[in-house]
């Protein structure tokens, strides 16, 4: 029971620590660049937490796409798939959802919204299928292919909003507005928070359960932790699991994009995403790739982003500064991960493992050293 409690408390403590670190780094940066520290941080706080409506319309609204994409990254990384392409998959999902939403007749009602979200899921999954095939057929590293496909997706979106999906006056690089009936309903009346947030929460809880309790989730985790042992000792079809992880990851990110256009923007823009798919890496890593913990880390980053907008508006601090802070937090987390792993290794050595021959040591480092950033399984 004690371990249970510790397991619950530890991620929370880490979140708190990360948030504190972020604020400390930000304060130092602000002071260093000559901005009034107190006033700026006050604006940040105000924009993120000052009232329940700010929390809902700011922090939680911003946290929603981060949670979708964060889950996408977490599920992929747990399977050993280093999908850096959530950004592109989100954009493809948003584009497909917009196209469908603009095409369905108004008589469809809420069914049209479901169609639009489904289109987003399929488009995101389809976009992730490209790096999946490249890796499984041709051995192309997905780290590279997914990053490159992000650029392709961004330009594809740009093409769409200037061409086939451009609004009727043909003036602005954006699509027409999605009809009222297809927009996601508000979760809390009077705020901008939509049901997409609830959907993301349910998905996070569901994925947590999936990884912990189902045979399929177990296969995914083992494949990510040691594909050789998964194949040999577990007789797991590693290629199939890898393919499924790519698809599921892309589907989650694509759904995130679809939710963003039907719930927030109501139209497709070229710059629809301020880099949600990249911040998602921070969200997932801060949550140690645990879907349930990702709720907390998505909220932390959502608050930072919402606060950054307010800080720019009220204290003229460039929002980019928060980007620097996010990057610092990731680096510190990765460093603590590495130090932790080093310490764990040292204690296990002290526990009296027999000395191994040198050649053996060198051979055996490899399979597990391949995924240093992955946390121990819960």
């Amino acid at each position, binding site marked *: 029971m004690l*371990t249970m409690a510790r397991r619950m408390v530890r991620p929370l403590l880490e979140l708190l620590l990360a948030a504190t670190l972020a604020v400390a780094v930000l304060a130092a940066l602000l002071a260093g660049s000559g901005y009034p520290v107190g006033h700026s941080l006050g604006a940040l706080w105000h924009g993120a937490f000052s009232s329940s409506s700010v929390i809902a319309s700011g922090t939680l609204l911003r946290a929603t796409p981060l949670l979708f994409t964060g889950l996408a990254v977490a599920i992929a990384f747990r399977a050993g798939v280093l999908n850096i392409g959530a950004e592109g998959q989100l954009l493809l999902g948003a584009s497909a959802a917009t196209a469908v939403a603009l095409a369905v007749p108004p008589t469809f009602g809420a069914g049209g919204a479901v169609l639009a979200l489904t289109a987003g899921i399929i488009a995101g999954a389809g976009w992730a299928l490209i790096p999946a095939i490249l890796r499984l057929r041709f051995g192309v590293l997905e780290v590279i292919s997914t990053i490159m496909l992000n650029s392709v997706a961004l330009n594809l979106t740009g093409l769409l909003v200037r061409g086939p999906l451009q609004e009727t006056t043909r003036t602005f690089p954006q699509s027409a507005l999605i009809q009222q009936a297809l927009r996601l309903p508000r979760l809390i009346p009077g705020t901008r928070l939509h049901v997409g947030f609830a959907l993301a929460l349910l998905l996070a809880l569901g994925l947590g359960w999936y990884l912990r*309790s*189902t*045979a399929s989730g*177990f*296969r995914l*985790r*083992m494949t990510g*932790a*040691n594909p*050789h*042992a*998964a194949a*040999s*000792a*577990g*007789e*797991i*079809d590693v290629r199939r699991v890898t393919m499924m992880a790519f698809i599921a990851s892309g589907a989650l990110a694509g759904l995130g994009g679809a939710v963003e256009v039907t719930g927030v923007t109501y139209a497709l823009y070229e710059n629809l995403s301020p880099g949600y798919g990249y911040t998602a890496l921070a969200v997932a890593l801060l949550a140690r790739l645990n879907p349930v913990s990702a709720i907390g880390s998505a909220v932390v980053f959502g608050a930072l982003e919402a606060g950054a907008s307010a800080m720019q508006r009220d204290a003229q601090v460039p929002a980019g500064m928060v980007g620097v802070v996010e990057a610092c937090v990731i680096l510190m987390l990765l460093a603590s991960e590495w130090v932790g792993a080093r310490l*764990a*290794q040292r*204690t*296990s050595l002290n*526990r*009296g*493992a*027999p*000395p*191994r*021959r*040198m050649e*053996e040591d060198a*051979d*055996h480092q*490899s*399979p*597990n050293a391949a995924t240093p950033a*992955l946390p*121990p*399984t819960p």
Partner: protein
Amino acid sequence: MVLPARADGIVTLGAPRLVLRDISRQYGTLQALDRASFTVAPGEVHALLGENGAGKSTLMKIAFGLERADAGTIMLDGAPITLRSPKDAMRAGIGMVQQHFALVDAMTVTENVALGSEGRLDLAETDTLIRRIADDAGLPLDPAAVVGELPLGARQRLEIVKALARKAQILILDEPTAVLSPTESRELLSWTRRFAERGGTVILIAHKLREILGVADGITVLRRGRTVLETRAHDTSEDEIAQAMLGSAGVADGRHTNRRVAMAYDAAPILELRDVAADDERGVERLHGATLSIRAGEIVGVAAIEGAGQFELLRLLAGRITPTRGTATLPERIGFVPEDRLRDAVVLDATLLENLALRSAGQRQGLMPWNSLRQAAIVLMRVRDVRAADPAAPMRGLSGGNQQKFVIGRELDGNPPALVVENPTRGLDIRATQDVRNALRAARDDGTAVVVYSSDLDEVLALADRIVVVAGGAVREVPHDRDVVGRAMLGA
């Protein structure tokens, strides 16, 4: 330098070129070399022979500066020399081609040769150099070819050319024929003769007796880190060399004590191979015409030298690969304990519980029965004496012996009809080794058909009721006798 004269087919040898004297090297508790000596003359092809783990590679790595000796001296042309690194060795004219090539697949032959040379990079000059060396030495090689697209024989020629480009006079080849086809092997060995006739020195690390005897002038045999035979090839015989390699040491650990041959012959066959062939990962055929039947309640030991095809035989029997020809009749479930435990058997970052659940994870449907698995893990830890706090402990924290006991327990859980085991006690201490061997015997007594491969012949002899030898991709049963098994392994 005076070239050795050849008269009447007998090599006349001058002063020794390279002498290793009383070399010792210890790894942890393992004495890899124990005052080993080695002498080679210019113009000589010299074979360094020995069983797996006899210390051949270690000794030559010391001669190439890759490893430092704990004690002993190295003399080159009569003067002592210190080799701190391969760079020192290359400067002294010593080159080595390792078993695993050190080539960059994506680069061309020329680029690979240029890589690691010092000073200004001039590819055109390197190109000319390669052509000259290749022509001179009779090693056909296209400088513009991309290494990744070359066959293994050509890659080996490239490694040799690389060494020659650095002006190597003494060339050490570690198991050079292991990766080659028979034709390529013949070509390589006849090349070594030509190189020696022109004053060069070749040291062949090997364990295939017959092909070596045809080409070597001098022979040195190591056993357990000691030099046990130094002789001229025409003064010796296959028998004498085999005897020296295997030794006549008594076989410890109850060779006959608990063999149960009588029972095994009545029992039903569990694993059956009929005229089976199998390929390795690269699609090269490693096993052919293998016919084997393993019954309930017996331990069949597999003995083989490295790369003889035992790897494929074991994976065939474990149902992990499928035959390219012939039929394999295997039960539904087969326990498998692979050689590389940390890579193929356990997930270090997962708990013991999860590592237990890994078995049959591929077939499992629906939810994970964590509660019953936890009970099973507790029982397994108790029965197999796995020392860990509880099933939630991470596998990483266990010692190698406890990990191996866990793996064997997992694979034996639920009494599978068959168990295939590869080097079960490698790296374990004496206590854990005994536990593992007892577990295998107990499984046999419970009616499991057990197959054990070990690179340690004594372990095969200690555990096996029957012994099969894999040599050159062929499988045959041999009597339970150390000398006979040893000779069969060497293809004699």
